[in-house]
């Protein structure tokens, strides 16, 4: 590579994340062992069988059976859609529309994981909302002090760790709002909801390569956005 324009700019000042990270990595030692594939937490066969039974009952005209499915997945659905669209009322409308759509099209459900099928409908509803409000930006997130949020399901016994967790959650949520919509959706589905690449490809209707690219680039973007606060995540 003789072209100086193509040569790496070694004179560029290191970014804060690199600078602090180098020190952290040095302190951790000069080697790290490469990890294997990250574990995914898909639906269990028992959950899928339960959902299938409820779907069949709902198809036979049992509205209560469908409402049991709603009760099982409404928190999950709202969490997913809200993190994508970042607007409480719009997210609620999208989730309601997603359940309406699921009820209308229940006969099209073909025995795959109901949660994935519902996620696809919910993501589509969220995407419709995002598309409709392209010209109207929204505030990143509601105030942290109001009742929009509740802590993660697992409570910490150690108050200090709980404070750290809340701080991490806050900065992560704000950072997620600053990556692209596609990257945000992919990261939420992969890191937060635990879907595997193939499931995300089906939910978001893009190729496997695109899903991987969105996740990896999105994580790099998150790290860049959080470059001043990475100490919070380093044990």
């Amino acid at each position: 590579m003789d072209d100086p324009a193509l040569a790496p700019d070694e004179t560029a000042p290191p970014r804060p994340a690199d600078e602090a990270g180098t020190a952290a990595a040095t302190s951790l030692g000069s080697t790290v062992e490469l990890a294997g594939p990250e574990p995914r937490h898909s639906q269990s066969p028992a959950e899928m069988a339960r959902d299938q039974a409820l779907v069949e009952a709902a198809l036979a005209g049992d509205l209560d059976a469908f409402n049991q499915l709603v009760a099982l997945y409404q928190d999950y659905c709202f969490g997913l859609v809200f993190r994508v669209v970042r607007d409480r009322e719009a997210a609620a409308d999208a989730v309601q529309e997603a359940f309406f759509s699921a009820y209308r099209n229940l006969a099209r459900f073909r025995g795959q994981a109901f949660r994935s099928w519902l996620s696809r409908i919910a993501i589509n509803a969220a995407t419709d909302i995002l598309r409709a409000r392209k010209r109207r930006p929204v505030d990143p997130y509601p105030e942290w002090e109001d009742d929009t949020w509740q802590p993660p399901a697992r409570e910490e016994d150690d108050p200090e760790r709980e404070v750290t967790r809340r701080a991490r959650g806050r900065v992560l949520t704000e950072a997620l709002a600053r990556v692209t919509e596609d990257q945000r959706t992919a990261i939420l589905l992969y890191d937060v909801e635990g879907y595997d690449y193939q499931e995300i490809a089906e939910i978001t209707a893009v190729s496997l390569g695109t899903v991987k690219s969105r996740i990896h680039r999105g994580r790099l973007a998150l790290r860049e956005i959080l470059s001043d606060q990475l100490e919070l995540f380093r044990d």
Partner: protein
Amino acid sequence: MTARPDPSAHPAHDQLLVARAAAGDLAEHERVDAQALLDACAACRSLYLDLRSLSASLATDLPVPRRPRDFRLTDADAARLRGSPIDRLVRWLSGPSLGILQPLASAALAIGLALVVINSLPLMGAASGPAPLGVATEGAYTGTGAPPESTSQDGGGPASPGTTPDRLSSPAASPAVGAAAPSQVPSDASGGVVGVAGEESAPPAVGKEQAAPQRQTSPAGPPLGLMAGLGLIVAAALLLTLRAVARGRARR
């Protein structure tokens, strides 16, 4: 053999490779490159560890948005969503249970087209019949220079050579050429033209003798195969259109 990365050149290092390594998303040969990079570059190592930490934190530390209301459906919602019988028909038409419809309709369309083409060939042949008939008849006279003997049974002599071509050139004037009124011309069992008593003896219509059997074999209406082909085409096109419309409506 992988060259050892230069630790001072971190900005040029493949950060996407490190990100993929952090997600455990590398092929075996890529793991060697990634491990070499992480061993040589502290900044890449830091990037790797940060990405792992962020991923773990995303899974456990994000606050959960509080749901503002209950999304269960009421009876009224359900009744509205079930819709009219037409709505249900549209949903059924657009549903995956009729996924087989498209290949079937396409096959029916192809078979229908083939039937139409095959059964149109005799019709096209019959439609173009009079033209060869005229040519053949005219050739029979002009080629010999003199009209052949009449085959009429009344013993009429040969027609005047001077008048015969004129009569032949006008289909309306000559029953031998006029294909429009075959029933007016008596014919024997072999399809040969029989002269009409009292009429001026007509020259033997060679072309007519050849054309008459064609007209006799052509049915009065379109053949059954043609009708079936057209029916298949219409039915397949109708089904495909209905399904396309239903799917479009369902998507909306």
